[in-house]
């Protein structure tokens, strides 16, 4: 795993331990961060492969490469993998672990051993999910939402898969409480709340959602297991239960979970845009505040997933109203990013291109979210490809692209080597183009009435589905170029030392790659994270 020939000693080798055990049992937040990064990113690639298969099936009407039952299993496993194994743990577990302790000026997180346990729980949960695919009744076919009554009755291996996700939930809770405690307790001298980098602020808001929402997922999944194994009948109408209650419980967690996925991504973008605009962030306080506002308001809008489920009209109205409230803090962020760009000295390097495309793609996804948040329009596009297009714009175009931005921006810091710029930009252009062809057509298809979660469709949808599938290939080609370029660069590329991006937050003030203890001496913070005027002429902080 060690990159070739580091110029100086660092966390890769300064403890004298480099074997596999020194990684998988390490309590160093940087090693755990890389473990998280590689394991979650590995599952991302599995999810991409499954997604490509889904698109291949939908390339033409009728059966193309798989039948209905296989298709159901593939979209379920695609969703479970992407959501529970990649997006939810990816940014907090990966880049949160790598960056956050350094940004607050700490040697490690507050509970390093608990941090290691989090990763192990994640791996054990993921392994259980994997086992569930090949044992019992085969891979679950319920969709990632595990809706009853189907999830209580299907013969596929739902119980085991749900148990795996249950374990992963524990891992998220432990990461969340670890990060909150770290940010409260381990900030360096002079690191006031007003000087926290916005990525750390976003992780702070995320951590609260992880702590307060995930237990509801745990109990909901436990109830599915009880429903299947004990026959509790709590969601079975013939026994007095109410299936709508399952949907409430599920979305009380899963809607806030959407903010676990997007908030850290917003933090990445808030950190990258000022650096590549050579200009302090516009509206620091409002961006930090809006992260907390999104976390709070986002916990009260779960019902907008259930407009067609048979809730009362009053509930629909209230949830619709609250949903529109969440748009305000989200828009605050977008406007502040754009204002940061205004009159900046913009440098279009790879991290910046990914961050800029985040703004555009997230805005498209966010605005289409308002169409879904308004009950009157939602009933027309509910459960169509419009919804699929919407959440891929937010989750992939948003969080995914921010993840790629973070990979280009921060990974060189930990390897001391960097990727080549030109192929990175080619890869970005291909991915951005392919992405829009792939998902914008889905939104159009949804408007025309194509439902989601069917392997077959009416002939009039054939052309756009073909276009969408071609988009998925362009995206995949871009992704392969990006990965080859990035990882070849990290291992064998040009040296990356000092502060080449010109960042002013603490991670750019320490050696590259960082030593195990992060800081050579206890840091004393005297300026904010975006005060670039404080940089010395040689770029050091």
């Amino acid at each position, binding site marked *: 795993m060690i990159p070739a020939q580091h110029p100086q000693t660092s966390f890769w080798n300064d403890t004298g331990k480099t074997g596999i055990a020194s990684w998988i049992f390490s309590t160093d937040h940087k090693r755990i961060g890389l473990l998280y990064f590689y394991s979650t990113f590995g599952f991302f690639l599995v999810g991409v492969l499954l997604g490509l298969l889904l698109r291949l099936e939908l390339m033409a009407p009728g059966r193309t490469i798989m039948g209905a039952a296989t298709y159901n299993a593939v979209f379920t496993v695609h969703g479970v993998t992407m959501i529970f194994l990649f997006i939810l743990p990816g940014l907090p577990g990966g880049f949160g672990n790598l960056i956050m302790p350094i940004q607050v000026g700490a*040697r490690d997180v507050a509970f390093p051993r608990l941090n290691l346990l989090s990763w192990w729980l994640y791996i054990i949960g993921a392994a259980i999910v994997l086992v569930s695919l090949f044992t019992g009744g085969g891979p679950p076919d319920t969709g990632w939402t595990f809706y009853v009554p189907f999830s209580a009755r299907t013969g596929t291996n739902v119980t085991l898969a749900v148990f795996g996700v249950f374990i992963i939930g524990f891992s998220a809770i432990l990461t969340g409480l670890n990060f909150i405690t770290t940010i409260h*307790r381990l900030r360096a001298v002079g690191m006031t709340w007003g000087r926290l980098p916005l990525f750390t602020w976003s992780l702070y808001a995320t951590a609260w959602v992880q702590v307060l929402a995930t237990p509801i997922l745990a*109990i909901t999944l*436990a109830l599915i297991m009880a429903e299947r194994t004990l026959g509790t*009948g709590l969601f079975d109408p013939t026994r007095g239960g109410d299936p709508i209650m399952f949907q409430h419980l599920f979305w009380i967690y899963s809607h806030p979970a959407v903010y676990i996925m997007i908030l850290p991504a917003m933090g990445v973008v808030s950190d990258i845009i000022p650096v590549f605009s050579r200009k302090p962030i516009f509206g620091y306080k409002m961006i930090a505040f809006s992260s907390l506002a999104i976390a709070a308001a986002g916990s009260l809008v779960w019902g907008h997933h259930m407009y067609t489920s048979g809730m009362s009209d009053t509930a629909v109205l209230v949830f619709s109203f609250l949903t529109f409230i969440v748009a305000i803090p989200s828009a605050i962020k977008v406007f502040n990013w754009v204002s940061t760009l205004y009159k900046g000295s913009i440098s279009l390097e790879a991290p910046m291109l990914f961050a800029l495309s985040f703004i555009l793609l997230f805005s498209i996804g966010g605005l289409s979210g308002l169409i879904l948040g308004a009950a009157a329009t939602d009933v027309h596009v509910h459960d169509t490809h419009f919804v699929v297009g919407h959440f891929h714009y937010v989750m992939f175009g948003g969080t995914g692209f921010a993840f790629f931005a973070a990979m280009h921006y921060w990974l060189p810091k930990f390897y001391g080597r960097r990727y080549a710029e030109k192929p990175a930009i080619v890869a970005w252009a291909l991915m951005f183009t392919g992405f829009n062809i792939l998902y914008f057509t889905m939104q159009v298809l949804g408007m025309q009435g194509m439902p989601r979660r069917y392997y077959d469709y009416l002939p009039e949808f054939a052309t756009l589905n073909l276009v969408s599938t071609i988009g998925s290939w362009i995206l995949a080609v871009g992704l392969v170029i990006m990965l080859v370029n990035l990882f070849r660069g990290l291992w064998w590329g040009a040296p990356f030392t000092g502060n080449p991006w010109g960042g002013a937050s603490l991670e750019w003030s320490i050696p590259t790659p960082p030593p195990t203890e992060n800081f050579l001496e206890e840091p004393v913070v005297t300026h904010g994270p975006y005060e670039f005027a404080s940089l010395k002429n040689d770029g050091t902080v």
Partner: protein
Amino acid sequence: MTHHPDKDYAGAKLGMWLFLFTEIILFGGLFLLYAVYLRSYPQEFAAAGGQLNWIMGAANTVILLTSSLCAAMAVTAVQRDEPRRAAALIGGTILCAAGFMVIKYFEWSAKIGHGIYPGSEHLKAGAAGESVFFSLYFLTTGIHGLHVLIGAALLGWIAVKVKGGRVNGGDYILLENGALYWHLVDLIWIFIFPLYYLVL
């Protein structure tokens, strides 16, 4: 490392309190179902709740409150560097936990003996609201019982450390957090008892 982050007392307590929030919310999901279904089936809930033995429930409440008292006194004893007394008090807590589980066992087996358990034919034949009530009852008290077992095991492990002197007057955060967890287990029962045994 001279100041190991683990020795940050306020930090360790903050982490524990955050964890306790998650436990409350976990049970919160079950209480939410209780609230909604109580509104749907007030009569069936009243009839089913009347079948629970409130004397056993009250006995368990007293037992758990006593156990919490022992846990709190154990913390004070450790602060005063009285490890033997502290270990004995933790032993008292664990004894109470065992007593709680024994009473629970008799309660559950009486119900199961009458054919009342989740998915039973008896409940399927009866009123729908009654089946919902007992499913919730078994799930809530079952998950709570699991927490009692985990808490008792945790305290047992800490008691060994108290005896060995690794948890002492200068470093007792482990016991304090363990006792906090135990108070949470107690607190949740304080909600379960009236909701299932008394108010219906």
